[in-house]
């Protein structure tokens, strides 16, 4: 099994650094984490057709988001005073993105996620809102979901994000790893609220459960990830004393909630064949199907975690194509 050399170096480096950060007593070396995380500032100038700026969505929780917008024919060079100028196209998808990091690592301004969001903008001709949600273990469940929900409400209420066609914001939720988990739960919250979510895009979403599945046993430690670190992150995120059958972790498990008859958004779920938690991800897909929800599974057999971070493998391009189709099929 091979990955390109630079991908191997990147993911191994993360693995190494993350090992330094997780303490056996469940605490997290946040200072070192912030020092090691490679961050980039927002850029109001166009870089490859995309410009970005940061907004404070909620003062109480210091919730920041980074907004990425494409340059258009009408506005080839954004004016710094008019970053929130209304979108002009008939339909503009707005993707609310939740970065990964197992609920503990990374930020909206992490270089890898800044790059990924910019790609999504160009790919889908979308506005991307990357949410800098509060992280574990300092902020446990349900903080990340609360922040996601706050961001969703905020996005939905921005007049400048409304598509011209129907004066509504066309919202998609997306995320990788823990971000995928957050996307699911925010979509759940949206259901009763009357806010329409047009689709969920889950890249290697982070789910789990008490039971040890076959894929976990088979792939433990083989492809950058170990069960021990997965357990650590769940212990850091879930409320103290809760086990992994908590519905946040295991939405279709013994404590889960049925989605039958509920207007849940259509989902695109990407599963990497070398990800040890794939059995949980596949169970999630099954759970959606059983509840009669629309879901498309992309199973990338030879892919490891993080394959979508660098555009140097075929899985990357396949997935990007599918995402583009998924988002545009509503336009």
């Amino acid at each position, binding site marked *: 099994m*091979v990955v390109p050399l630079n991908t191997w170096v990147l993911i191994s480096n993360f693995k*190494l650094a993350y090992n330094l950060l997780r303490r056996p007593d469940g605490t997290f070396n946040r200072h*070192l984490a912030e020092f*090691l995380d490679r961050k980039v500032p927002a850029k109001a100038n166009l870089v490859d057709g995309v410009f970005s700026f940061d907004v404070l969505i909620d003062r109480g929780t210091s919730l920041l988001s980074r907004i990425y917008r494409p340059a258009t024919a009408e506005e080839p060079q954004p004016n710094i005073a008019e970053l929130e100028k209304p979108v002009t196209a008939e339909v503009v998808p707005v993707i609310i993105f939740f970065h990964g990091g197992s609920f503990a690592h990374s930020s909206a301004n992490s270089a890898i996620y800044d790059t990924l969001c910019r790609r999504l903008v160009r790919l889908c001709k979308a506005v991307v809102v990357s949410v800098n949600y509060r992280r574990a273990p300092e902020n446990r469940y349900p903080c990340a979901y609360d922040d996601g929900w706050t961001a969703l409400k905020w996005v939905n209420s921005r007049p400048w994000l409304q598509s011209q066609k129907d004066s509504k914001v066309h919202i998609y939720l997306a995320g990788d790893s823990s971000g995928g988990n957050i996307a699911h739960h925010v979509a759940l919250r949206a259901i009763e609220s009357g806010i329409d979510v047009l689709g969920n895009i889950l890249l290697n979403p982070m789910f789990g459960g008490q039971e040890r599945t076959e894929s976990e046993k088979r792939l433990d430690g083989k492809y950058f990830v170990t069960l021990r670190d997965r357990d650590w992150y769940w212990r850091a995120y879930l409320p103290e004393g809760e086990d992994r059958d908590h519905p946040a972790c295991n939405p279709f498990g013994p404590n889960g909630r049925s989605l039958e008859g509920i207007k849940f958004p259509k989902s695109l779920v990407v599963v990497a064949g070398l990800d040890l938690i794939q059995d949980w991800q596949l169970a999630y897909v099954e759970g959606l199907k059983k509840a009669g929800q629309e879901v498309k599974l992309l199973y990338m057999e030879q892919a490891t975690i993080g394959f979508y971070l660098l555009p140097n493998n075929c899985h990357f391009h396949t997935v990007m194509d599918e995402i583009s189709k998924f988002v545009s099929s509503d336009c």
Partner: protein
Amino acid sequence: MLRYDSTSSSAGSSSGSLSSSSSSSKPPQQDIDGLLAGAGYKVRSSELRQVAQRLERLETAMGNSPADFSQLASDAILYNPSDLACWVDSLLTEFAEPPPTCSSDFIVDPVNNQTVVNSSWTAAEPHTPQVHQNITYDEQQSLDNQLTVVTAMEEDSGIRLVHMLMTCAECVQSGDLSLATSLIDDMQGLLTHVNTVCGIGKVAGHFIDALSRRIFQGMGGGSVNGGSAFENEILYHHFYEACPYLKFAHFTANQAILEAFDGHDCVHVVDFNLMHGLQWPALIQALALRPGGPPLLRLTGIGPPSPDGRDSLREIGLRLAELARSVNVRFAFRGVAASRLEDVKPWMLQVNPKEAVAVNSIMQLHRLLGCEQTRNSPIDTVLSWIRGLNPKIMTVVEQEANHNQPGFLDRFTEALYYYSTMFDSLEACRIQPEKALAEIYIQREIGNV
């Protein structure tokens, strides 16, 4: 030896936007892996493989002693994480990893053109703490089809540089100047592949310079440096400011002297090289604050005669006397001008048998170690009259290196290790121009070896 093709693994990159910013004065950007740069990491494509190998070594080390590893997180001083090569190296050094043995070599699989880690495959036991990584990486450049065993050590340009330096020094010692010259050329070439801003690359550069100067000035001893005494003074001063070594040495010596002088009313310090007298204000002040009051302090400062007719010894002595007066310490100064320590006779120091004597030698004794081991070698002379003074204490500060062996190669090797360490430690110094001037000071010392 396997050559790495830098055009390999960034193949197929789309127009990834490089939104990361901070530009530094690093070697040419063309060789930097574009995709990793987008992720915030500066790694040269040519170094990717080495970095990967070192990551693997670090992982093994981590598996072997997990306790040390968590210690690492709190204790290690970590370098710039963007410079992945340096960062991984600094962690590896912290770990004091033994050099890799053949069992962790990489074997190129001729069938699949892939590199496979040659770690043993045992059946996974349920309770085993060891995790067997079977994820490998792929080199997409064209490889030879024969089986090649590559050790991590040989791939490392830095290590090659060191080997070449040693070989070159050997040639200089044995007089094979033509081979030495061609080695110099090779090393200059190799320097372009190594990071010369920090680490071995930087030191190697200086050593290569010093070696080539020696070669082209012909065999023969003597100082290879020009530089007026005035220049050297300035450099010394900045070196003192930039590094903590001398300050620390002075501090420690003064502490010891203070303790030795406890209970004595007449004390005499003999300083083997007064220089700017930077060590003594602190001692004078400490004596002033001594419970029971300060003693009578006599300071005899030895130093080279001033070339321009100034009596620099006297000037320094006057300044120290001023300071002593301001803190009410009775003070007397005597300067002894001598170009060589072995020329100093004990009677010049005028030591009173009733006083407590401290002899203070900062970086002076090693100069007395000559090549010849005669009966009355300088070091013996000096040591015997020191004994004659019957001092209460003698404080000695020396470089932690043997720079005086008769063989050039031995001196060279010692110097290489010593000055590499010095340069590494200088990396922590943030103040300019002190740091740059300190480096020049060290450079000249290297030239002198």
